[in-house]
């Protein structure tokens, strides 16, 4: 019924659903590495680099219709009336739907069901969906959507989060989404040195390489199948089923190639109209968002206003940290509660602070919605507490690295939430590694290679106006969901004819889970050929691909299942030779006993057998932060230290990040190439946050929602990323002892860049992204 427009179309039978990133064995890349700790190539690497990997936008089904969504041009308005008659009468239009056509729950939400499928009484943000159209051509659908007549009574938008507290409620749930006060230690404590600062963080967009796209196919039983780039298929299915008024078993979510995996894949406002239109028309319906819609539809990083006061003694040891954290949640709750918990808990950073007092709020506004973007909450506060550390160092006349060194946290210390840090926390070691790393050389006048100045090759940069700055940042982030989320995952491993298959609905988003699953099975079972099946909701849930979960929970489940298969495989042999299974080892496809007497191959032992096992992994439970912000809320923590080197044209305020030296706490390296790739990606995203990425609004209206208006780092902006140290201290509670690696560099690098720009310009740099006018030196 559906077929890929990608490279495998020819191979697909007429009824095969083939536009799925079947992650099979390596594609003859000459790759011989296998098992854990080595650079196994992702199975889809070749297809992705050749541009033939099928993403959701490549899906196609016979007789499909095209959808378009009508979105609000206003950030805040009352909907007086919606007239769809003109649109419905247009030739080629098959269905027009509004809130009146939602058969099930009118509201949805990942944490709180506070968001309508289609706005009906009030519009709460620019770009909120109002109606959707299915037609026989994408242009027809767009024109018809534009022909829907909506009468709005425009209301005053609330766009300043500080004013949200007193503003009339924008939603029946009120404007305060969450308030967390944190009280740790003695409020009366004071230090000899006090520094204060205000920090503002802009709105970073996930800006995925592929905009949202999907296909909905109605089923003969009245159900529907959604082919979407979901990163949390079971939650998406449950949300969809509730809104469609269907039993969950009549909605199936099939995961297609995922081009980017943050809030951009968590916008049900995209998937729900698609399914509703398919159900209404009885035809497959395809929706491909424009870049503009992509910017308007999905959630962004929480803009934040952070006020800090740090107290230290004369030697620079921290005494007390006081902070007020205000996160702009935008119109709906989404992941704001989680982001706020991380912001509050990590408000003082990876430092030992005896007294910490924080007030954190996430408030509702008419700004674009905020949600899950790597390191949410943790990234914003890192920029602020590291800014404070620089201020303290300046005030005390200490080297910024030295000041930090005097305060670093270690295993056994307490977080301000009262939770003991039980995992490895090699913060001092990380800082030392970046501090001692060699600095990149300064370009010399007789240097043959051209000096890439801030502003680029053809820019206006002038060497005489360029100052180099070096800055440090340390940071931390939690892994897995926090505050009592059930983080379970399930996996099945099957072995037959010398080939293993992994069935797990953990979505491969490019983070490398499928490769890791292959490596685990190769390691445990000694089988070379391992296929990881594509994810869908017919499989047991594995939870979202976020917060570094899958290495831990799904990797753990795969390992357990593989070990159960291993026991099944070895049991008969062990019984035959009268020894226990533990005395047999599998290596290089061979089974050998401890004494070397028995030696056979895995293939031979497997011959004619089919072995199955299913297992779950569920990390230890966590608890919600209480009314004083106390509680064991996190399963695991990861730390990183980064030293940034920047060049600033101090007259133009243009900045180029020259070099980022990264030291990271990774627990254990399971695939060196993937670890390096994740760190490079995270640092680049952090550099974007530091320098250019800010989705600007004017009174709630998004300005220039395009990749021209929203400047992502290009190859010329991406710095040299040098991984100077990976600390491999195994986390005993994590499967394989490995920690997630993606989020920590995103959390830390913006703060490091800001510190380096401070050093180059002598300016305070309290706002991210850094505006050119704040990066010009005072005395020009």
């Amino acid at each position, binding site marked *: 019924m559906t077929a890929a427009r990608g490279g495998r179309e020819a191979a697909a039978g007429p009824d095969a659903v083939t536009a799925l990133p079947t992650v099979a064995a390596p594609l003859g890349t000459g790759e011989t590495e296998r098992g854990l700790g080595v650079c196994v190539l992702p199975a889809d690497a070749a297809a992705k680099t050749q541009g033939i990997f099928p993403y959701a936008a490549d899906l196609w089904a016979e007789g499909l219709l095209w959808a378009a969504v009508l979105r609000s041009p206003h950030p805040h308005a009352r909907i007086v009336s919606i007239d769809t008659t003109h649109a419905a009468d247009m030739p080629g239009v098959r269905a027009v739907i509004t809130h009146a056509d939602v058969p099930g729950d009118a509201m949805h939400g990942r944490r709180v069901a506070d968001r309508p499928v289609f706005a009906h009484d009030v519009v709460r943000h620019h770009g909120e969906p109002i109606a959707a159209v299915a037609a026989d*051509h994408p242009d027809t659908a767009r024109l018809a959507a534009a022909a829907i007549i909506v009468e709005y009574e425009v209301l005053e938008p609330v766009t300043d989060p500080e004013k949200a507290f007193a503003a009339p409620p924008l939603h029946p749930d009120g404007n305060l989404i969450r308030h967390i006060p944190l009280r740790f230690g003695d409020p009366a404590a004071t230090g000899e040195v006090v520094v204060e600062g205000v920090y503002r963080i802009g709105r970073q967009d996930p800006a995925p390489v592929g905009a949202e796209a999907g296909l909905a196919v109605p089923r003969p039983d009245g159900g529907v199948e959604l082919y979407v780039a979901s990163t949390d298929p079971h939650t998406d299915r449950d949300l969809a089923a509730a809104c469609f008024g269907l039993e969950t078993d009549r909605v199936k979510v099939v995961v297609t190639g995922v081009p980017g995996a943050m809030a951009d894949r968590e916008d049900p406002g995209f998937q729900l109209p698609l399914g509703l239109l398919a159900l209404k028309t009885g035809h497959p319906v395809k929706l491909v968002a424009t870049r503009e819609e992509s910017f308007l539809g999905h959630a962004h990083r929480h803009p934040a206003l952070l006020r800090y006061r740090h107290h230290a003694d004369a030697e620079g040891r921290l005494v007390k940290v006081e902070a007020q954290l205000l996160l702009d949640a935008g119109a709906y709750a989404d992941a704001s509660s989680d982001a706020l918990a991380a912001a509050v808990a990590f408000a003082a950073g990876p430092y030992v602070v005896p007294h910490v007092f924080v007030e954190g709020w996430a408030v509702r506004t008419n700004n674009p919605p905020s949600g899950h973007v790597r390191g949410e909450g943790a990234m914003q506060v890192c920029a602020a507490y590291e800014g404070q550390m620089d201020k303290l160092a300046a005030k005390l006349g200490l080297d910024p690295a030295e000041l930090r060194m005097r305060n670093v946290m270690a295993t056994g210390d307490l977080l301000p939430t009262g939770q003991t840090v039980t995992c490895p926390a090699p913060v001092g070691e990380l800082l030392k590694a970046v501090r001692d790393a060699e600095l990149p050389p300064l370009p010399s006048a007789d240097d043959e290679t051209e000096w890439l100045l801030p*502003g680029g090759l053809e820019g206006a940069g002038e060497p005489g106006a360029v100052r180099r700055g070096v800055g440090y940042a340390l940071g931390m982030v939690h892994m897995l969901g926090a505050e009592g989320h059930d983080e379970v995952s399930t996996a099945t491993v099957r072995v037959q004819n010398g080939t293993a298959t992994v069935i797990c609905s953990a979505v491969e988003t490019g983070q490398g889970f499928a490769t890791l699953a292959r490596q685990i099975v190769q390691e445990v079972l000694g089988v070379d050929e391992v296929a990881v099946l594509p994810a869908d909701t017919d499989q047991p849930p594995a939870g979202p691909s976020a917060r570094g979960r899958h290495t831990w929970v799904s990797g753990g489940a795969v390992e357990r299942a593989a070990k159960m298969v291993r026991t099944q495989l070895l049991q008969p042999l062990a019984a035959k030779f009268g020894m226990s299974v533990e005395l047999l080892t599998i290596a290089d496809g061979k089974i050998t006993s401890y004494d070397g007497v028995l030696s056979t191959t895995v293939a031979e032992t497997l011959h004619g057998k089919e072995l199955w096992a299913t297992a779950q992994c569920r990390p230890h439970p966590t608890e919600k932060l209480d009314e004083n912000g106390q509680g064991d809320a996190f399963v695991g923590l990861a730390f990183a230290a980064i030293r940034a080197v920047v060049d600033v044209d101090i007259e133009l305020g*243009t900045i180029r990040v020259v070099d980022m030296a990264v030291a990271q706490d990774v627990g254990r390296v399971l695939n060196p190439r993937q670890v390096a790739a994740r760190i490079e990606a995270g640092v680049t995203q952090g550099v974007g946050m530091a320098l250019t990425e800010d989705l600007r609004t004017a009174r709630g209206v998004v300005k220039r929602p395009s990749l021209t208006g929203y400047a992502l*780092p290009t190859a010329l902006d991406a710095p040299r990323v040098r991984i100077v140290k990976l600390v491999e201290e195994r986390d005993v509670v994590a499967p394989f002892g490995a920690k997630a690696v993606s989020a920590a560099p995103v959390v830390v690098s913006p703060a490091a860049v800001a510190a380096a720009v401070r050093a180059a310009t002598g300016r305070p740099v309290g706002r991210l992204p850094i505006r050119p006018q704040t990066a010009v030196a005072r005395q020009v």
Partner: protein
Amino acid sequence: MSTYARQTGSTVTLPASLDEAVAALAAMPTAVPVAGGTDLMAAVNSGLLRPAGLVGLGRISEIRGWQYADGHALLGAGLTHARMGRPDFAALIPALAAAARAAGPPQIRNAGTLGGNIASAAPTGDALPVLAALEANVILAGPDGSREVPVSHLLTGMDPLRPGELLAFVRAPLLHAPQVFLKATARTGPGRATASVALVLDPARRGVRCAVGAVAPMPLRPLEAERWVAGLIDWDGARTLDPQVCTAFGEYVAMACIPDPVDDPVNPVDPTGPAGGALPPAVAHLRRTVAALARRALGRALS
């Protein structure tokens, strides 16, 4: 039934000569010329423009190169940025070559053309300040023959492109003297100008001509500053200036292009305020940027 055909039923013609192109436009007045398509197709894809027909200019070889004509160069409107960026062209009109090399990422420069840049007339069009500083003319081909207009008249709307007319050539003087184009952007990778300055020396006329791009809808010429600085240069000697003169020139240019707000009795300008008086920080920064660019441009032209 599908509505597909109805909406994409536009005609595309691919004339091989300017005359054919003009005729094609005359035959279908609702058709739109397209060169590299880097501006036009973005407008089509976003639904801003639905041309009834397209006249593709890519096969008109006579406008894809340049020729010499008594001290001038006749530049074809179909010259791509990539072509203009090459060394042979840079030897001819260095500032235009520099602007072409700065005009977007390689993919765009391979397709985007000089004519498209002028016709689009975006404030951030990088060729425009250079053409303004060169005091170049454009040669327009239309159903009633061709005519020549100063590029500034075209850009200010004094003498716009008429229906059925095509931009055929640009007539640019060959000055045989240093020229500079400098562009400030928000990132190190390719980006639109936040401000740009083109500066050319014209020893024959003992002139310095300067144009500032991206700060206004069209390039601005700080004529007084040009005259002032040209008067200080020893045209028959070493053609150098004291660095302080360059700085003063930069500030002169910046003040001319980004003037102080007109005095408002309700909100009087505070001369004791932060640098730039009562200018909002972003505007003050823009002025500082223009001053730095103009100073650097003059310094490089004279070095």
